[in-house]
């Protein structure tokens, strides 16, 4: 050992605290230390005391279980919860929850602490030694090998490759129907991801009241959570939430002088009133925070920050794409309306999004 180590590099920082080169020797295992008696081992009074303590803890458990039933039958929670005018029921509910849970807690803790105390004080604390055995001995392995040989031999699987090969083929194919059955978990048509309820002439209405918005209502610095008017006709069974999840829009008026508008989008806003998709392009949370002074939109989930002054360009956080802008205008009655759907799919990127974007651009170009 020592010779072997001498050939090894020393620690480069001189950190090795090594043994001297003398013959390696280790300390002898002194064996188990002598048992130290506990007070309950030598003092019968202490043992008696421990016994009473354990019994007391079990009694606490019994009291706890009774407490549960006092809470269960003794407290009546009648009437409205969280009612402003009548807080009685709410208080009763709170008290009941405390008594039920507290009763169970005492019932359990009494038993648990009691039993552990019993084990620690009154049961023997002599450490015992048990031998370990190898997980597998060589004799067992040889025997098992022989048995496996007999099994394989008797089955004849080695001698009859035709059976083996067809069995493998069958076993590979047999589970496939069950994978195939998963196909109908959902539709695979991705076109719904491209479109929302917005189209030319659809009014912008407030979320949740559903009232239309006049351009004059949108004052500088104010913000509106907006839905398409045609959403209100949808029932939950017809996919109300699915459509809402794509169509939600944030609307705010900005000072037109502070905003950069790219060519082709000049007529998408109404005198500085801009509408953007509220669905984050990162992983789809609703962008609910508008920092009025800085013209930033902030996603509360992952803090992606979008700059309203530059068409919602990403200035911080994990989002990679600007929020899609909804082109808007005003109708004859002065209400804000959309002049079309979003020009690109809203929400988080999906694997086929780039195909969708290219095709939608082509359609719009024609």
């Amino acid at each position: 050992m020592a010779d072997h180590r001498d050939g090894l590099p020393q620690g480069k920082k001189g950190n090795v605290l090594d043994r001297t080169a003398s013959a390696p020797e280790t300390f002898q295992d002194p064996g188990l230390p002598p048992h130290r008696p506990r007070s309950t081992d030598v003092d019968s009074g202490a043992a008696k005391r421990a016994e009473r303590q354990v019994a007391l803890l079990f009694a606490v458990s019994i009291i706890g279980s009774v407490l549960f039933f006092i809470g269960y039958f003794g407290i009546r929670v009648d009437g409205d919860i969280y009612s402003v005018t009548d807080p009685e029921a709410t208080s009763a509910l709170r008290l009941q929850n405390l008594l039920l849970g507290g009763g169970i807690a005492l019932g359990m803790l009494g038993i648990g602490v009691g039993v552990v105390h019993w084990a620690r004080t009154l049961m023997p604390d002599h450490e015992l030694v048990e031998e370990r055995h190898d997980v597998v001995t060589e004799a067992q392995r040889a025997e098992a090998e022989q048995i496996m040989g007999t099994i394989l031999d008797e089955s004849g699987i080695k001698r009859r490759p035709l059976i083996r090969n067809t069995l493998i083929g069958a076993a590979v194919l047999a589970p496939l129907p069950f994978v195939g059955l998963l196909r109908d978990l959902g539709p695979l048509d991705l076109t719904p991801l491209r479109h929302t309820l917005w189209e030319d002439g659809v009014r912008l209405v407030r979320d949740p009241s559903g009232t239309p918005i006049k351009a004059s209502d949108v004052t500088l610095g104010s913000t509106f959570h907006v839905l398409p008017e045609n959403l209100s006709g949808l029932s939950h069974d017809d996919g109300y939430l699915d459509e809402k999840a794509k169509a939600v829009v944030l609307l705010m008026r900005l000072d037109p002088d502070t905003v950069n508008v790219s060519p082709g989008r000049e007529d998408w806003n109404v005198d500085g009133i801009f509408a953007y998709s509220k669905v984050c392009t990162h992983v789809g949370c609703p962008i609910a925070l508008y920092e009025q002074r800085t013209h930033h939109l902030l996603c509360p989930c992952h803090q992606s920050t979008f700059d309203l002054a530059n068409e919602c360009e990403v200035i911080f956080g994990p989002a990679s794409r600007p929020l899609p802008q909804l082109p808007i205008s005003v109708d004859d009655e002065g209400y804000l309306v959309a002049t079309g759907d979003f020009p690109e799919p809203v929400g988080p990127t999906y694997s086929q999004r780039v195909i969708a974007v290219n095709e939608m651009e082509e359609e719009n170009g024609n």
Partner: protein
Amino acid sequence: MSASTTTSTHGTSAEYQADTNVGKIANFVDTRVGLSPIIKEFGRKIFPDHWSFMFGEVALYCFIILLLSGTFLAFWFDPTMATTEYTGNYVPMQGVEMSAAYASTLHISFDIRGGLFLRQLHHWAALLFSVAIMVHMARIFFTGAFRRPRELNWVVGCLLFVMALVAGFSGYSLPDDVLSGNGLRIVDGLARSIPLVGAYISMLIFGGEFPGHAIIGRMYIVHVFIVPVIILALIVVHLFMVVVHKHTQFPGPGRTENNVVGFPVGPVYAAKAGGFFFIVFGVLAAIASMVQINAIWNYGPYDPSPVQAGSQPDWYMLWTDGALRLMPGNWPFNWEWDLFNLVSLPMAVLLPILALTVFVIGMFIWPWVERWVTKDNRVHNILDRPRNAPTRTGLGVAAMVYYGVLMIAATGDLIATHFHVAVNDVIYLLRFLFFFGPIIAFIITRRICLSLQRKDREIVLHGRETGRVQQLAHGEFIEVHEPLDEYRRYTLVSYEDAQVMPAQENAKGKITGSEKVRGRLSRFFYEDRVAPVTPTELEAAHHEHAHDVDQLESAGSTSTRH
């Protein structure tokens, strides 16, 4: 009645007859199913005792409590997304349209006696379940308990860790409130990002577009059947392997690789472990009765439009959310890539998923990595004290820092609002720590381990500091050190002095490239090390001390050692 023997049915030997009623029943069962061999095998089986061995137990007990409380909740919970108008007792939601899942959760909370308690017990138990699993894994890792023969059991444990996350998240989604719906929205965003097939996977998961009408029912079967069955099966395998291997034990006098020192199952260990179940249950019940958790009635039913600022997932999912928050999407260049105009690659989502995957895969394969580097294929039943494996301990702490940075990142917005700093600065700092934190933690931890080993050497060589200062004849002050007894000393010196193993030739006499890498890693592992004290060194040190003592005695001072 007295015990008597009669001729058995075979007429060859006498059969045992019990005297008492209990004995008769026991004997009846024994002769039908064979209790005696089981009691013979397990009745006095020895388990080593150490406080750190109880974390796995906590996880097991939490799982039992989860099964119990979850079964009760399932009696009343309605896992459908059919729309209903709430007519229950909770005033703020009366008349609101919501899914049956959310309405039944309100019903459980406000109309079923003890329902709120059961919900809170279930949720708290789920949180403690994942805490216990992670702490247990840390204990296994830092003490080297994953080494042969327990590598496969480590893998089973890692699977349990992953399943606990799935169990937790699927359960969190069930009430169909705003917060859990936003969690599912993020799952949709993650699923969609998978190259080539992501959009289709999302469609299949949600049965169409998000949120659809299917997801709660599907999450329900995952949460109450698929995942619990898998967890249960894994626990059975996990415990079966513990029986096969017998428990590990810390080094110490009388403890060897070939024995187990501890207490027998009956009565001591059964009482302690059994009692501990009731303690865990009692503590969780006390928390559930007093501390509110997941007040879904405040959030409202799921609606894709609102979300609260400062929304966080349950703690075990924080690290996944944090990974998403740390990644810049548009810096230093745009991370949304298109492959040949055919496939969108949102790298700002895919890279965080990769960061999580690397962590999990690293966890699974670690026993084999260490075995390869150290070429240590021996059976280890004696644990390492973490300080005695400085590199492993350092790497473990580095992994914890990696995990911790991701976890803290998920609370970046709360840190910003509570400490009045910019959320951007918090994220910048955490981005730095994501890369450099683990390295710094590794270096510091390894240094601490080496120092602790040196301290152990000091204690063995020069004894325990007694705090008694005495003056020698010539005026020098010395502190009296008390030598260790041989039992304590053995605990401090009985670790293995692991050595660097340079690259070795293979059978053809060639040093392969991978072997060179292994050799370098071996040097990285063991180059800095502190060897245990040998008896020779101890003797030399004692000579020195004897000199001091002689001086003390010749000076006429009273040596308390005698």
